[in-house]
């Protein structure tokens, strides 16, 4: 029954590096955009606030799958430039989750107590130093748990790259499926689900370590040990 099991597994695992690359690339772009747009939403300038608001609502409001189709099928028709699938995927994953991340950054920065700003001003720190040395180190620790959920959400979204044939795990499995009997579909999906689960746990473990390190640097008590599964709800509108 499982005579070519090894072949099936290795064929799906060829997609693992692509899934990991899409996740890492997407996470990197998410962080950059989330901080840029999140801090821009707190800007004094009405124009900058407006632009960042348009980005955030635009990417949160239109579906991620539609964005993927748009960048992969429409953009080439518009500008005559075909983007390689993995790159298109990273762009969509980054821009989409960056919009959600911007709200996380904005919320965390706003949650830093008012007295911290006043203290920084009293110490004659300029706006840049105030943000970099006083506000952000405290805000970042608050951001880590919601970012954990966001990154897991992003990992799960890499499966959507199936639609643009980026060669990640889900697509590898679907390419095998038609040729295999029912009994071996269990292997395909079992392997896929297992690896997504492992990657999700890996993200959580890394984020928890960062959380503890961040709390320690602030001289706070590190958060208590929790289950490896991300606990609070992810997603949201």
């Amino acid at each position: 029954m499982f005579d070519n099991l090894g072949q099936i597994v290795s064929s799906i695992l060829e997609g693992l590096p692509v899934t990991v690359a899409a996740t890492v690339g997407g996470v990197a772009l998410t962080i950059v955009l989330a901080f840029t747009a999140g801090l821009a939403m707190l800007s004094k300038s009405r124009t900058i606030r407006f632009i960042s608001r348009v980005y955030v609502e635009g990417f949160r409001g239109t579906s991620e799958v539609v964005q993927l189709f748009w960048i992969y099928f429409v953009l080439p028709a518009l500008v005559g430039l075909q983007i390689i699938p993995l790159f298109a995927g990273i762009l969509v994953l980054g821009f989409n989750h960056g919009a959600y991340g911007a709200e996380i950054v904005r919320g965390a920065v706003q949650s830093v107590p008012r007295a911290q700003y006043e203290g920084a001003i009293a110490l004659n720190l300029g706006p840049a130093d105030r943000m970099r040395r006083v506000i952000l180190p405290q805000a970042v620790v608050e951001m880590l748990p919601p970012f954990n959920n966001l990154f897991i959400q992003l990992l799960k979204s890499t499966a959507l790259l199936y639609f643009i044939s980026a060669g990640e795990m889900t697509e590898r499995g679907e390419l095998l499926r038609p040729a295999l009997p029912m009994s071996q579909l269990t292997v395909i999906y079992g392997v896929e689900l297992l690896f997504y689960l492992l990657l999700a746990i890996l993200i959580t473990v890394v984020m928890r370590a960062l959380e503890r390190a961040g709390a320690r640097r602030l001289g706070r008590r590190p958060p208590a040990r929790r289950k490896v599964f991300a606990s609070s709800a992810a997603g949201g509108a």
Partner: protein
Amino acid sequence: MDWDWQNAINALPLLAEGILVTVELTVLGSLLAYVLGLVFALIRQLRVPVLNQAVYLFVEGVRSTPLLIQVFVFFYLLQPALGIRLSAFVTGVIALGVHYATYTSEVYRAGIEAVPKGQWEAARALSIPRMRVWTGIILPQAVPRVLPALGNYTISMFKETPLLLAIGVVDVLNSAKEVGAETFRVIEPYTLAGVFFLLVSYPASILVRRLERRVGTV
């Protein structure tokens, strides 16, 4: 290639059919998620033996893996194994509903835990039957507070429905794809599909935020 209004207008009738399907998927999927999520939450809260642990593992497993693969598993593996053949649409509704039930169950849990302990103690002091405590005291206080969160998940689900294209559901994105295949022009249909999602989800999220201010949040 530039924007062509004529093509955009020609695409509308087909897109409208897809929009209807997308809305139906979202409404039916949400109803399933609201009901099933409450069932999951109650099983966990009442610590029903065996089922309690089973629900826990199911919820965590489903939440940590992609919806797209769950759709495939349900469509290509589970249904033949059970000897049933559901349409792509029904498959989509069930997959969306079950996937989001794992999220809504957490919402209900938070809502139930937010009911003050004194309510339980008072109910106990008055020796109100257990069933009546849930239906008459706890849930009526818990449910209004979870409505904004449920609304947010409906909006999320709405935006995830287009992935059902993978099993052939003719939603708004699939309709857009069809228009593109017929006219060899993809700009208008895909852009209109994106605009449709924005036009629904942005006002919806404002409504949810307003509801949040009225009833609070969990």
